[in-house]
């Protein structure tokens, strides 16, 4: 191939150099290198130009170079504008679109340079074009690749963000105290947090998600706030699947443990773009603790009302025990301290009556040992809390294997014992125990239990104070009734006597009486007045002795002498009833005693014997023992005193039950005991109904006393 060239007549370039340049140009295939004449027509052509532009030399030489431009560039006059630019500035360079012979466009790098001769006259232009299509394509694919990579990076970033958000949401949902579950329209649980799992009795969300709906619901009895059954299809989660948002209080009672939980449950549907339910979200807010607190306060209020409602504290304590179950305890019992120091179970409650019976049976078979908690609480007056009853505790507290077996079966979990106190004196203890509910008592529960114990104690104290006050009023009324009766009889004799004398005087009959008869009647009136005065003194004495200690005027006194004197006063009365009084003694029995008080003792004992002997014989005996004591016994063969009354009759204003119609103030034996004990002695009674009664007084003789030989001598 020859290089088509115009002779441009460069005389400075020798032929050899020109040949070499021609050779170079001819062999370059990567660049189109050609020359335009000064009008822009193509004047030379090389193989590179042919390869790039697609024209053979003969097709293109002489043609305007505008053929290489796109239609748009040609219309815009770009070919001429470029040449004009080169004429003015000598050079133009650009990358732009050019057109091949076949019309295909390609990306080209173009340099156009002005060619001037020695005189500086423009002779033409050199144009070098390079096909940049490949580079351009490489660049484009690199750009695309970069864009793609950027997009992918963005996508990765987005996904990471989303995953992080989702993880965060998961973390938030896992961390919140509310239980959250998500159900598919098919009822399958696809999300649950740990709180929901725990509420459903599972260890964690994975365990809950692995369970079937039947396995979950089957663990519980589900009920409404009022305790009525809750149909599963009406639970908020199920209703949300129907497209309905709802919320309600739900009680879950775990069948296995009996533990009850309270939740506020709300369910909301999530719709897809077509308005169909996509998911159902349930939120459970458990408020078992709050509910327990509410129940505890309700219990406290009701128990307080019960305690205040009646003064029969035994009945009200039973009520309190019933109210405690099941609200604050599975078991509740109250024990009252007996006079012998043992604990008597007053009441026990459990929601299952058969278990209540078991508790009673338990107490019968295994009464609490002295080291048992209720005893400790009573001894110390301090409430006790056992948060967790361990097997070791049961073993220690139940030495009998059978007892241990029953205790283990009951599944006792937690316990509290609070004392019932009246002032500083312990009266008993209230015991609260949990088992089935699985509930564990804590410090707050103990505060409540202690408060209940305090209020119950107060109620007991009130009841006791009331009983004592009522007793005091009854005693006073008795006293007034007896005193008025005792005063009325002698007063009646006096009134009859005086009023009959007044009538006689008024009717002029008085003078018919002899002076002796009149003296006798007036003497009788005087005696009756003296007796009335004595009675009043006695009443005042008793009234004084009720409120202060007995003061003794000790002197050397002979009990035998005092007793003889008393018997002489009653001889007539006894004889009138057809009986007799016998005294057995061994000479004088002297001691340091209050003579007039001992007279009262003997008078009362002999007087009572006469009153109740019903005409039978009365035996009085006095004997001195070697231990410095004198014994006085008064025995009658009257109706006797029932054992039930034997202690009571020593009380103030008390008399034997069947002696209501007997005259007497019921003060005698009370006074006798006071006088005897003031002397350091004791009085005992031995009697069997129908076999009479024997009162026995043992008196220490005191420092100035003198004993007599113990020889029986009948007087």
């Amino acid at each position: 191939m020859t290089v088509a060239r115009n002779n441009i007549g460069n005389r400075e370039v020798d032929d050899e150099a020109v040949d070499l340049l021609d050779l170079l140009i001819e062999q370059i295939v990567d660049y189109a290198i050609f020359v335009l004449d000064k009008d822009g027509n193509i004047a030379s052509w090389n193989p590179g130009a042919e390869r790039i532009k697609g024209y053979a030399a003969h097709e293109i030489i002489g043609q305007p170079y505008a053929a290489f431009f796109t239609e748009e560039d040609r219309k815009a006059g770009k070919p001429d504008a470029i040449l004009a630019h080169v004429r003015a500035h000598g050079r133009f360079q650009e990358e732009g679109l050019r057109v091949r012979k076949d019309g295909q466009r390609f990306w080209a790098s173009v340099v156009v340079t002005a060619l001037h001769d020695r005189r500086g006259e423009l002779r033409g232009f050199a144009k070098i074009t390079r096909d940049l299509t490949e580079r351009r394509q490489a660049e484009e694919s690199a750009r695309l690749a970069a864009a793609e990579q950027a997009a992918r990076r963005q996508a990765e970033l987005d996904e990471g963000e989303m995953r992080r958000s989702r993880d965060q949401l998961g973390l938030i949902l896992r961390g919140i105290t509310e239980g959250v579950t998500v159900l598919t329209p098919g009822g399958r649980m696809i999300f649950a947090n740990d709180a929901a799992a725990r509420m459903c009795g599972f260890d964690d969300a994975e365990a809950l998600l692995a369970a079937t709906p039947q396995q979950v619901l089957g663990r519980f009895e589900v009920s409404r706030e009022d305790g009525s059954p809750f149909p599963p299809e009406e639970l908020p989660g199920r209703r949300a699947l129907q497209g309905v948002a709802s919320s309600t209080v739900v009680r879950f009672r775990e069948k296995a443990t009996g533990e009850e939980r309270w939740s506020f449950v709300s369910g909301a549907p999530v719709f897809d773009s077509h308005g169909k339910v996509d998911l159902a979200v349930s939120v459970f807010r458990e408020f078992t603790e709050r509910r327990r607190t509410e129940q505890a306060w309700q219990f406290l209020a009701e128990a307080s009302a019960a305690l205040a409602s009646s003064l029969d504290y035994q009945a009200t304590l039973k009520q309190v025990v019933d109210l405690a179950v099941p609200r604050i305890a599975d078991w509740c019992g109250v024990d009252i301290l007996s006079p012998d120091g043992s604990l008597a179970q007053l009441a026990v409650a459990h929601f299952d009556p058969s278990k209540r019976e078991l508790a009673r049976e338990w107490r019968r078979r295994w009464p609490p040992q002295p080291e048992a908690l209720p005893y400790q609480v009573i001894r110390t007056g301090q409430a006790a809390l056992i948060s967790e009853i361990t097997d070791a505790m049961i073993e220690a507290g139940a030495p009998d294997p059978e007892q241990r077996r029953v205790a283990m079966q009951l599944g006792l979990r937690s316990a509290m014992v609070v004392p019932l106190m009246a002032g500083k004196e312990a009266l008993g203890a209230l015991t609260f125990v949990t088992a089935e509910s699985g509930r564990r008592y804590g410090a707050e529960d103990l505060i409540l239990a202690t408060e209940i114990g305090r209020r119950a104690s107060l109620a007991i104290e009130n009841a006791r104070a009331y009983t004592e006050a009522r007793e005091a009023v009854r005693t006073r009324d008795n006293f007034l009734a007896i005193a008025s009766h005792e005063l009325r009889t002698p007063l009646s004799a006096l009134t009859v006597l005086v009023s009959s004398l007044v009538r006689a005087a008024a009717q002029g009959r008085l003078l018919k009486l002899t002076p002796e008869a009149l003296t006798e009647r007036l003497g009788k009136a005087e005696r009756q007045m003296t007796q009335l005065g004595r009675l009043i003194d006695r009443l005042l004495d008793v009234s004084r002795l009720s409120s202060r200690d007995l003061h003794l005027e000790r002197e050397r006194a002979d009990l035998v002498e005092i007793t003889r004197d008393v018997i002489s006063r009653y001889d007539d009365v006894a004889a009138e009833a057809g009986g007799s009084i016998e005294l057995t003694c061994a000479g004088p029995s002297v001691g340091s005693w209050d003579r007039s008080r001992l007279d009262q003792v003997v008078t009362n004992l002999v007087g009572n014997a006469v009153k109740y002997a019903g005409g039978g014989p009365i035996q009085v005996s006095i004997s001195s023992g070697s231990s410095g004591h004198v014994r006085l016994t008064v025995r009658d063969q009257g109706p006797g005193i029932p054992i039930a009354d034997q202690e009571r009759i020593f009380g103030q204003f008390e008399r034997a039950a069947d002696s209501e119609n007997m005259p007497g103030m019921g003060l005698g034996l009370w006074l006798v005991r006071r006088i005897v004990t003031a002397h350091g002695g004791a009085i005992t009674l031995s009697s069997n109904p129908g076999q009479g009664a024997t009162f026995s007084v043992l008196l220490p003789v005191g420092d100035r006393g003198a004993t007599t030989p113990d020889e029986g001598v009948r007087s």
Partner: protein
Amino acid sequence: MTDDAATSAEHILVVEDDRELRETLCEALEMEGYAAIGAENGRVALRHLATGARPCLILLDLMMPVMDGWAFRQELLKDPSLAAIPVVVMTAAPAARAAAVASEAILYKPLHMGAVVDLVQEHCPDGAA
């Protein structure tokens, strides 16, 4: 206490355990011109009636040992020959308890002779000398 003359003659039976009152009452009735016999409890009074004595009036105390007024009254009502004898209760007991005894009247202690004589006159018209 049994007075053979009194068992046949018209007389008043005073059943009272307090000796002072019983004796005073009998003497006062005698001063009023009536024959009176005392008994210290229900059993003694029944023994007196068992002799055939028929008093025109029984003055009956309630609270007495051995046999009280309520029991004595029951015994009287059991015997048709004694049931019709008028009984006046003398008591210091509350009205309700005294009213539980079938009686013509109740005299509350302390007794005034005027009130006693008014009742006696009503039931023993022939007694006053």
